[in-house]
């Protein structure tokens, strides 16, 4: 049997808004994925370390504080340094439209903004996960 998709849901930075991260973690789990949630205040280093240790296929980054331009690219850069670019990295939160192209260019596969149904994220992961 194929092993379930493993996802790390992570809160980089100091932001404490984790309603979305937790709802999504729960929805992914209900969709049959194995989900690890980091809890709050993770550095990009801690997130990448956890992702490698847990051997995940996907990292979901959630940030509502406006620090996404600093934090998200740092995660993809560290993954590159660890030759773990096959991990799919998604971003979510209060992210202005105009910031999205930069994040995509930095290696974030997709950015999900407020109002996105969890089913859209689930479908995206199933379609794009590399393994």
């Amino acid at each position, binding site marked *: 049997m194929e092993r379930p998709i493993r996802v790390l849901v992570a809160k980089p*930075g100091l932001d404490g808004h984790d309603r979305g991260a937790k709802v999504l973690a729960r929805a992914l789990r209900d969709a049959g994925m194995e989900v690890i949630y980091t809890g709050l*205040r993770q*550095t990009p280093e801690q997130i990448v370390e956890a992702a490698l240790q847990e051997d995940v296929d996907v990292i979901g980054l959630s940030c509502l504080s*406006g620090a996404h331009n600093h934090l998200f690219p740092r995660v993809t850069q560290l993954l590159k340094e660890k030759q773990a670019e096959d991990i799919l990295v998604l971003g979510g939160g209060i992210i202005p439209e105009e910031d999205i192209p930069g994040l995509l260019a930095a290696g974030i596969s997709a950015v999900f903004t407020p*109002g996105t149904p969890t089913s859209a994220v689930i479908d995206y992961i199933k379609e794009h996960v590399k393994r």
Partner: protein
Amino acid sequence: MAEEKDLRKAKEAWEQGTLAKVTARFPERKAEFTTLSGMPVERLYTPLDTAELDYERDLGFPGQYPYTRGVQPTMYRGRLWTMRQYAGFGTAEESNERYKYLLEQGQTGLSVAFDLPTQIGYDSDHPLAQGEVGKVGVAIDSLADMETLFAGIPLDKVSTSMTINAPAAVLLAMYIAVAEKQGVPSRKLSGTIQNDILKEYAARGTYIFPPKPSMRLITDIFAYCSQNLPEWNTISISGYHIREAGCTAVQEVAFTLANGIAYVEAAIRAGLNVDSFAPRLSFFFNAQMDLLEEVAKFRAARRLWARIMKERFGAKDPRSMMLRFHTQTAGCALTAQQPDNNIIRVTIQALAAVLGGTQSLHTNSRDEALSLPTEESVRIALRTQQIIAYESGVTNTIDPLAGSYAVESMTNRIEKEAQAYLERIDKLGGAVAAIEQGFIQREIQESAYAYQRAVESGERIVVGVNKFQVENEQPPEIHKVDPEVERRQCAKLNELRANRDNGKVSQVLAELREAAKGDDNLMPYILESVRAYATLGEICGVLREVFGEYQPAVIF
């Protein structure tokens, strides 16, 4: 109860006759109607639903126990609520300009938003502060920034609310020190610090220290202010963020009051007389979309708190029993889609807060699901309050929805269900234990997930999100925080460290460290540190050394 019997009969006759005829041909839209929180709503409320209500016991008169109808005898006929827009971004200079703008526009109180490093006790040059400086609020590293923040704003003339929790003692000390420099004695200061650590553990996330030393800091503030800042609200016990995290109206009341009980118990344990600090406790609630449920919620919270203070804690001073509260409209109800629709949402929510008898109000701006609000959006949000205040007429009479069978019935129900939660939390050992065991967090998450599923299944309609969408929306203009803020703030900090009396700083911090190890009230030591221009990060660093840091259990 002959009348009740007659009415029951009449109602049955209506149901079987007039109503049945219509529903046979035109069934109702849904089998069950519920509030936003999932509370069942009846088709029709009649005196039968409020038969238990005893006017004098349960409602009373405004300004009298149990304060169901409001905490002041004249409510908005005497004075309107304080219009207080939460604001702050970038550096102290930029935020100072925004405050002056808001005061010019007719705002009547200030409400300071701090950035996350400030809220978590890090200086702007701390590695964890990178990318966060000046983003969700203003960056404050030392008294020097605080002086800039309030430059030209006379602190004896405005009341200031500060959303600061774990390092509340430090920011309050800075405020006192700025006032001293303006020649304003601390006795004349009025305002609020949020200072509510328990909801940080449960829902908001800006904790630093473990519960025990955190509760000590809080009770130290209670004791210090009762002597030195008699007009200061020492805490704003907040349901707002718990509701934002996804809980129901009943849970918002229950978890907030459970935290309130924990603070009162901690202060009594610390040797304070209940009536010496309880009059300065204040509350902070959310105003969500379901108008009737929200009005009932505010009324129920007031009555329940009055009863708790009188019956459980034996308070004698009527002010100890008054639940005074600030309200903010629900951030989580704002949609990124068709953001102008949010103006209407905020209007309904603000109306609920006013009909519920709030003492102060923040109305969210239409663009806050996209970024921090633009100046224009903030003005519309403030105008929304002014239109309700000056044009709608709802301020002319006190508690105008009282006596509505529906609202009274919902008020009773919310009080009763919140009371049941309080009993469960007591059995778990109180709010601190309930949070440590993850009970509160799990309850919130269950509600949040249930809501999300209801939206995704289409059972709950959110206009513009899962119905009435438009294609190819043009993104509106949004507010941007200058990316140079972090660099500028760090430069200012370096300059401060180079120019202050560092010998003095080491000395006051050493004294603070010793005091933290013992059980002296920490406020005077923190005030001395602040006056010497010790930074927020240095002061919190000393306390981190002595107290340790909170390690949350990850629950989802």
